[in-house]
């Protein structure tokens, strides 16, 4: 794994920051929720205590704390906002609840909904009576027709029964039965109670309006069919029921004084029925859904609310554990999901005591979205900042890593190239001036290389030194042999002398070869450069070689015009000598040695190709090293591989190079020297 990748991974660990931020945000959110709960609870409690001081403004009947019992005919009266038209339809009531089905005794299915404005009580009754029997024009008490009975308990306690019947649909008035002086019941209109009779395909609708002044705490309504079937409730003397549970007049306004915008306050009675409502839960006024970027990481941060209870929306009552707890005497708060589970509502409920008893509860609802928005803003900031920080950290780490790996790479390639093919050592390392570890590494390399260089130098000069040191004892031996010969030896001893001389002479040629490299290097240093014609030099040299090596056949191929170059002709000749000697050594008798001069770009190429054994490929690179000998020549002369080393030295002195290769046909070798023209 590269350093760059490693540091990148290290840098990525800064992603822990946003993660920690998320955790923090969650805890923050939880804490905020709790504090919001407490605050709302406290508000609810405060309102409850304020209301408890004036129970008569809250409850229509403070004394009656019996719970709502629908099956006994208790009726919830929806508060109506605005005056509905008497038209037989309840759509303009704006009550988000369906009419309640009434019990039936052989009658048709009937449904009732009751609402009230400040002055009127509105009744809406649907009866699925497929066969409507209209009231005769002059009704007789025995006449059977479809009608609706309405019994009202007046504020004083007296009960009055009205009935609605019609011969034709339309606006009608309630009628009441008056016992005439003749003892005969007669129907009389009650103009204060108006109604609209609407006939539909399923039956009829009756929408009635009763002034509140006529209405006391109880009311019964019953649909009577012409066949005698009954639906609804009839007033009974002893039985409870028929009580009207309705918003207390003025309570909404009273509540309105307690609340702040964005909060809805509801007072419920002991059954959880709404007595008064004020305010509205703050809609998330951010219709402009958070910027696209803000939403995706919300899911990382948000406390998981999907398991929280959904708020049960009911027009007449508030349910839930919070309200239940408050009605049991304990203030409570709970979070509910609403609006399809997307939004949150905080609901706080406080008991509303009247004396020792809990008669109801004050419920405050507040949107959780403000909180969310607050948190989201903070989080978006946090997120953006940490992401920016992470990006910067990654970028920084990446660039540091890039720089480091570049430096190491530079050092590595320098180390790779430090020791050349020819054994030369470059001592200066990049980066060694830097103070850090890489610099120390570079300096370490430099020390290593300089030691290596010293050793190489020692080895390189060892041959020359050895030759020099051996020369004196050799001279002693040879001069002693000379003396011995001059003194005269016996004929039978002469053989030994000759052999000793041969040995000495071989030793001497070895030593002179050993020292030759050093001498060549020295003479190269002193060489003078002149302009000369390489072609002419080659022609004259090859002519010389033809004389010198009569056994070999030379071929010469040169350009047609003069080839001037700037250099040391003596050295070039020496270079040729070595190449030719080498070629002659390996060229079989009657083999051909082809010398060729050609232009190649801004260089001259001198190549000497000879018939003979090919060079093992692994040797090609090393041929030009000092004292490297690879092949066995034809003669007995010692070969120390200095010839090709000298070729290389001379080529390099001319800023050129020497190459060795095997001939394409594999039947010989080609040595090429490339020399720049200038």
């Amino acid at each position, binding site marked *: 794994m590269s350093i760059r990748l490693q540091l990148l991974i290290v840098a990525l660990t800064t992603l822990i920051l946003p993660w920690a931020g998320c955790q923090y945000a969650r805890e923050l959110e939880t804490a905020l929720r709790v504090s919001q709960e407490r605050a709302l609870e406290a508000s609810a409690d405060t309102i409850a205590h304020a209301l408890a001081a004036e129970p008569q403004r809250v409850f229509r009947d403070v004394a009656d704390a019996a719970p709502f019992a629908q099956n006994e005919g208790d009726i919830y009266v929806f508060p109506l906002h605005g005056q509905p038209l008497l038209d037989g339809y309840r759509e303009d009531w704006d009550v988000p609840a369906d009419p309640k089905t009434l019990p039936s005794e052989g009658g048709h299915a009937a449904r009732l909904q009751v609402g009230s404005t400040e002055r009127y009580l509105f009744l809406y009754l649907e009866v699925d009576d497929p066969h409507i029997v209209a009231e005769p024009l002059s009704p007789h008490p025995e006449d059977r027709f479809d009608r609706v009975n309405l019994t009202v308990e007046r504020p004083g306690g007296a009960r009055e029964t009205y009935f609605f019947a019609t011969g034709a649909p339309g606006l009608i008035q309630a009628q009441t039965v008056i016992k005439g002086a003749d003892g005969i019941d007669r129907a009389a209109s009650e103009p204060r109670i108006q109604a609209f009779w609407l006939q539909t395909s399923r039956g009829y609708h009756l929408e009635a309006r009763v002034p509140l002044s006529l209405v006391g705490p109880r009311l019964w309504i019953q649909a009577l069919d012409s066949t005698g079937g009954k639906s609804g409730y009839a007033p009974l003397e002893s039985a409870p029921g028929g009580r009207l549970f309705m918003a207390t007049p003025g309570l909404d306004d009273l509540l309105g004084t307690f609340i702040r915008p964005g909060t809805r306050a509801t007072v419920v009675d002991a059954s959880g029925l709404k007595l008064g409502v004020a305010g509205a839960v703050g809609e998330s006024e951010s219709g402009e859904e958070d910027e696209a970027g803000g939403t995706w990481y919300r899911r990382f941060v948000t406390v998981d609310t999907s398991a929280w209870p959904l708020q049960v929306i009911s027009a007449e009552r508030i349910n839930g554990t919070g309200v239940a707890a408050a009605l049991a005497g304990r203030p409570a708060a709970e979070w509910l999901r609403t609006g399809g589970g997307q939004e949150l509502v905080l609901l706080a409920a406080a008991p509303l005591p009247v004396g020792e008893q809990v008669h109801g509860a004050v419920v405050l609802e507040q949107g959780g979205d403000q909180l969310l928005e607050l948190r989201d803003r903070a989080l978006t900031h946090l997120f953006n900042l940490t992401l920016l920080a992470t990006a910067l950290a990654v970028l920084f780490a990446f660039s540091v890593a890039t720089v480091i790996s570049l430096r190491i790479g530079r050092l590595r390639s320098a180390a790779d190239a430090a020791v050349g093919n020819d054994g030369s050592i470059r001592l200066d390392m990049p980066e060694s001036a830097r103070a850090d570890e890489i610099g120390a590494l570079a300096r370490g390399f430099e020390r290593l290389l300089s030691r290596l260089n010293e050793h190489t130098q020692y080895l390189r000069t060892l041959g020359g030194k050895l030759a*020099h040191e051996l*020369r*004196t004892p050799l*001279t*002693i031996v*040879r*001069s*002693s042999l*000379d*003396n011995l010969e*001059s*003194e005269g030896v016996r004929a039978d001893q002469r053989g030994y002398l000759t052999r000793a001389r041969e040995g000495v002479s071989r030793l*001497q040629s070895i030593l*002179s070869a050993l*020292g*030759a490299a050093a*001498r*060549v290097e*020295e*003479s190269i240093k*002193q060489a003078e450069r002149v302009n000369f014609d390489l072609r002419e*030099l*080659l022609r*004259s*040299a*090859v*002519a*010389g*070689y033809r*004389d*010198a090596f009569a056994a070999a056949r030379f071929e010469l191929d040169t350009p047609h015009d003069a080839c001037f170059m700037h250099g040391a*002709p*003596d050295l070039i*000749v*020496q270079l*040729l*000598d070595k190449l*030719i000697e080498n070629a002659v050594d390996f060229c079989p008798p009657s083999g051909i040695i082809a010398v060729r001069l050609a232009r190649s770009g801004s260089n001259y190429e001198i190549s000497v190709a000879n018939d003979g054994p090919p060079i093992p490929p692994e040797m090609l690179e090393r041929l030009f090293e000092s004292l490297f000998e690879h092949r066995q020549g034809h003669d007995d002369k010692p070969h120390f591989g200095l010839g090709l080393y000298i070729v290389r030295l001379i080529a390099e002195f001319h800023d050129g190079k020497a190459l060795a290769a095997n001939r394409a046909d594999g039947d010989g070798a080609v040595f090429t020297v490339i020399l720049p023209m200038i």
Partner: protein
Amino acid sequence: MKRHIAIVEDEPALRDNYAAALARHGYLVKTYGNRKLAMQAFGTRLPDLAIIDISLEDEAEGGFDLCRDLRALSAELPIIFLTARDSELDAVSGLRLGADDFLTKDVSLPHLAARVAALFRRIDALRRPDNAGEVVRRGALVIDAEKMQTTWNGSPVVLSLTEFWIVHALARNPGHVKNRQQLMDAANVVLDDNTITSHVKRLRRKFLEVDPAFDAIQTVYGMGYRWLE
């Protein structure tokens, strides 16, 4: 009267071998191990010829100093450097200090003796004014083989013995190419090719000092050199 030769050489075995060989040729040989001993002796009496090694005991270039001191004592005394050091630089330095020849220790004893004899012959010839020895004339060049003297356009060209023999070999057969081996044989020295090359180079320079237009020694690449008339 026997010729008196001084050998200054710090290697006793070599010293004795040289001494024995030269003594066999009829010379009176005195040997010295270092510069100090040699100078003491020379202060008393100068030899007829001095053979000096360059490095003497702990003096790496003691031979050069000795040569300079000797030359101060006598301008004519023939001096031969005989050394294991064979670098071009050493040869140039030695000859510049006024040595008459520069031989490496590869030289065989007979060769050495021949050299010594040749030097004495040159000195004898110089001392004989009525000389009618073998003279080679090639245009501006006059070589007196007896005195081992060379003149170009009448101006003397001072050559070392090796240089003299090289010029002599070349000028005797103008136009003939002499390869390096032939030149070495003529000069009675064992040298490698490079040394021959540098000898020739130095020869040309000496002639050029006398005549800037000198162009008589031609290099025949791959073969050797020839004298152009």
